[in-house]
């Protein structure tokens, strides 16, 4: 279930990049000088970092990590 939710989150964030709702307007100007379209895309980058954190926390390929560690400890033992 976790993986399905994460997959949905990835697809949703990809779709949200296409923010056509702020296409033709600079208003509101955030802090008085940042056009809303630029502010949105800046926030989007922060959201991408959060999504990466979720992926790392809940979908990290632990089996690969363990396999390599196991292999390395076997090799160390042989030497």
């Amino acid at each position, binding site marked *: 279930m976790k993986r399905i939710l994460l997959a949905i989150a990835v697809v949703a964030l990809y779709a949200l990049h296409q923010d056509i709702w702020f296409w033709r307007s600079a208003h509101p*100007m955030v802090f008085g000088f940042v056009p809303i*379209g630029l502010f949105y895309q800046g926030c989007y*980058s*922060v959201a991408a970092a959060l999504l*990466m954190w979720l992926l790392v926390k809940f979908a*990290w390929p632990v089996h*690969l*990590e363990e396999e*390599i560690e196991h*292999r390395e400890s076997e090799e160390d033992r042989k030497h």
Partner: protein
Amino acid sequence: MIPATFVFLYLAAVLYIGVFAFRKARGKQEAEDYFLASRSLGPFVFLFSLFGTNMTAFAILGSSGHAFSNGIVTFGLMASSSGLVIPLTIFFIGTRVWALGKKHGFMTPVQMFRDRWECGHIGTVIFVVQSVLLVPYIIIGIMGGGTTLNVISGGAVPYWFGGAIVALVVMGYVFFGGMRGTAWVNTFQTILFLLFGAIAIIVIGAGMGGFKSAANAMLSAPALAPLLTRERISPYYFFSYTFIPLSAIAFPHILIFCLTAEKMKHFKKTVIFYPLCILAIWLPCVFLGVMANRVTDVPAIKAKQEARRVLATQGKNMSPEQRDELREEAAGDDVIMLLLQRYAPLWLAGLLGAGIMAAVMASDSQILALSTMFTEDVFTFYGHKERFGEGVQVLTGRLFIVLITIVAYAVALRAPETIFELAIQYAFSGFAALSPLLVAAIFWKGSTKWGALASTIWTAATVIAVALFQHAVPAPAPGPSTVFGTIGGWEVLSRTPGGTAVFGFMPVVPMVIVSALLMWSVSLLTNKPKQTTIARYFEDMK
């Protein structure tokens, strides 16, 4: 001359880092140590060097220049889409390639493809396509170095001499330091990039008297207000750009960098912080590029705006050559340097100039990757390592670095820069179209070498076709595109002022989709590798 002094100090520092890395290697002759730093990079160096190696001159100079001409759309087009797609590919593909590298000892992507699909010469074809797409980066790095040193020194350092210095310094630290030296230099450069963005926006913002008045003035000027929105860019074009970051993981130098991490857990910080690093560097550069349009007391910026205005109003009646000349005049790649010269004190302009230099000199990892690929995919594959030993392999790699630098410098002196800028545009699309190879090799048991060959040939053919098309059909003036055929109201193929469009999308979209379809369909029709080979890649088959 003060700024140039800072830049020379910076060059000396990076050269020293390369020599220090050489001494740290203590005369080791192993290929894995020289080309992959013995797969031993820690989390901090891995994050910053992987990020730094993906940030070229475009990150600072090109982004602000693009924003100067096109407005805030630059950030969404190139930065925020990369902030999602690149870490995703590192998460899904980079970690798996790292594990396969540890398991099977791969040092290049082609080694993996040859083993995975049981092929020899098809691997050589992939090597050739990858190398041809990579070479323009090295040439443009030397060109950028020559131009930047020339501008920063106020013309005191001629272009040929600046290019030679940059070529020698990059060659020096890659030659001596190998991957370890390159990774350390990239880490140092990334820290400079990050400082650059923060300091530049504070200094220039203060110099301009705050951004509020500049933004309001832009809003009330009809010619400039659209730069604060995206109304001049089609949503299809904007969407197309999300395909471009697929190229990152397919670039050999990025994939080879993925093999250098000591532990897989080092990828965690890289994946999480990658979007934030992009934000920290690109947002200030894009914003400053847009705001440069309100600077009224820098004649060079006024001249660029005038060229842009003439192109927009009279471009239709001009010859293609005249339009190209005006485009060149209107290009804003040096606006950030002009802003610094105008608003930063001399010593600070020098420090920030070193930051720009760091961005320009990002061709180091491409040079090292080409050398690694040549010695592993050609020298070793065709039996020379067995014959002459590993010491000769590393020496060959070092000599290859010298050779490629000399050739790139010679070409940089003669050829016009625009040719290579275009080649880099094609290279991004080309590597994006090669990304299905990686996905298929790692995730699909049914993929075959013939599918990989079909995708590779398609990529090479389409890159050449787009280049020939853009050469044969000159870019039109700003406004409507030159259209070749329509179906149901859709423009099939069109030459736009900025490039080419297929059904309104950038060529990268059909290139990637057809490449993936070819990989799939040709693999379905051809013989698979042996079950024992496939089992080495897929846990559930053991």
